[in-house]
């Protein structure tokens, strides 16, 4: 132990690559390795299997699903559930509304958030500390449900599309993430160069900063978009018209309040229940599909946002 062991130390310090993070395994640690491996596999299964089950159940014969005969692969493949779902006008209306609210809402979010984050990122802008406190205060204190409700009501925004867009126009946390990005990822030399070229703040922001900020626009935009897509609260509290309800509130009716339109009188009660269950599996897939489709392309950005946000805390 007292030997200086000169060989391994320079070897590791000289190669600070990702590969070098692998440590040489001692035989005594094999057991630990095995245990860790087993636990990781179990955790992955516990997360993957429920999702996989929903997928295969949505394609399988509902009677086989109900009796527990569908376990690893779909059986008695049928698209009956999906046909029923696509024929349900409520789903379409909900889908249309949610896409509208998500796209429009995210656009407004970005238009409000990014310029404000940029202004707060300028070190020479003295009032930024005070302004930041004004924003941060609202993260910890809010008027609560009823004063907000009465305000929305007084503004005449109940039962309107605006209630999905305006009250949540700014998320302070997302603004802080964007500010941290502008502070750390955009070199100050660019501002100096822009000033020499006679660019104003607006010109610098639009022509120099934004084109360099693809990553943060993706991160913040996705956070906002997912927020809109999954929003259930707004529809529940502020909107009563069926025509305006977003997807999540339609889902709640179908999935949890059990209002599936199974209809046909010839079915036995248990068949109707099985069929209703199949529709639920399908609805879960249909409603989550858009996020699942974009997810593989964008997932690295999601995690990136956490890191950027963590820098500043």
């Amino acid at each position, binding site marked *: 132990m007292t030997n200086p062991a000169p060989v391994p130390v320079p070897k590791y*310090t000289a190669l600070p690559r990702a590969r070098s993070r692998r440590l040489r395994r001692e035989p005594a640690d094999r057991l630990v390795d095995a245990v860790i491996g087993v636990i990781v596999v179990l*955790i992955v299964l516990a997360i993957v299997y429920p999702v996989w089950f929903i997928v295969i159940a949505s394609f399988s014969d509902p009677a086989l699903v109900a009796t527990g005969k569908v376990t690893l692969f779909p059986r008695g493949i049928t698209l009956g559930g999906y046909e029923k779902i696509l024929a349900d006008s409520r789903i379409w209306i909900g889908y249309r509304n949610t896409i509208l609210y998500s796209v429009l809402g995210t656009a407004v979010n970005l238009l409000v958030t990014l*310029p404000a984050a940029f202004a707060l990122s300028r070190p020479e802008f003295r009032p930024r500390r005070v*302004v930041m406190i004004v924003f941060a205060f*609202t993260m910890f204190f809010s008027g609560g449900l009823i*004063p*907000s409700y009465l*305000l929305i009501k007084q503004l005449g925004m109940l039962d309107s599309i605006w209630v999905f867009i305006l009250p949540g126009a700014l998320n302070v946390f997302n603004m802080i993430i964007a500010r941290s990005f502008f502070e750390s990822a955009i070199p100050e030399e660019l501002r100096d160069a822009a000033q020499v070229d006679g660019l104003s703040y607006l010109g610098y922001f639009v022509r120099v900063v934004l084109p360099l900020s693809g990553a943060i626009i993706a991160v913040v935009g996705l956070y906002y978009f997912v927020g809109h897509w999954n929003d259930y609260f707004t529809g529940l509290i502020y909107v009563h018209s069926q025509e305006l309800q977003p997807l999540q509130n339609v889902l709640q009716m179908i999935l949890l309040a059990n209002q599936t339109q199974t209809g046909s009188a010839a079915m036995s009660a248990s068949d109707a229940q099985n069929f209703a269950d199949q529709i*639920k599996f399908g609805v879960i897939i249909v409603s989550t599909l858009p996020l699942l489709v974009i*997810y593989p392309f964008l997932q690295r950005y999601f995690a990136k946002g956490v890191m950027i946000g963590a820098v500043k805390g």
Partner: protein
Amino acid sequence: MTLTDHPRPRQGSGTSPRPAAPARPRLASGARLRHHLQRYWQLWLMLLPALAAVAVFSYVPLYGVQLAFREYDITKGLTGGEFVGLEYFRQFVRDPMFTRILANTVRISLWTLVMGFIAPLLLALLINQIASPRVKSVVQTITYTPHFISTVVMVSMITIFLAPGTGLVGKLTGGSNLMGDPDAFATVYWVSEIWQHAGWNCIIYLAALSSVDMALYEAAKLDGAGRLQLIRYVDLPAILPTAGVLLILTMGSVLGVGFEKVWLMQNTLNITASEVISTYTYRIGILGSQFSYSTAIGLFNSVVNFLFLIAANAIARRTSGTSLF
């Protein structure tokens, strides 16, 4: 469009832009304001929409909190009703539901806080042990995917899987329905929370772990540390500061059990264990139109949360030296 507006006043002021900013010329306050606005009006313009949004949708409701101390009068609006002091707070404390709601809220949130704090920590330590970078990133991606499932879908998945006799979990519990069992409510709640969010919440710890100096591991190994000891004496200390800050932050929401998920999981069978402050506020405020009373309950909730945040911060500062403020 306003590209040429800005440089002109700056040249007029005769100072070179940034480096000179600390040594501001002493001017009369009116002139200083004009000078400031000349230089920064575009930044104020960029802040305007955001400031307007928080002014209207955060600060106006905050001002409206005084409703908790007033008799709501529909003809006089948010702040015109007669002042009744703490009457509505007294009413809440005397409410026959008070003890139960408070107990439910604290039970659900404490379980979720404690388990939701431990699980990502353990998961990060575990994922960090995976040797192959590719396997590691696949595992990481899989564990944080459920974070993006909506609450409505999440709750319906819970319902499906817990369905007695037919669901994946329901098969194991035989005929008993966990969703209708008041004793199981908090457990179902926090387990599903962890299933959905532990992977996401461990990203930040994994980032902290990836920045640990390899020399530390080497040194520990030379001293004869095994795998478990490396985790205990190198990995764990590396993430504890981050964990401390996160713990303080979450302590600020002890009574802040999210509305959506509890509301969606509630049914007539489990209501004795599942009515929490936020759902009660909704029930009597929006559905029952008792605006003042409901506002008072909401305010009570915020104040208790804030006290917990202060307390957690003070404890953390004394014991570990980390604190938020």
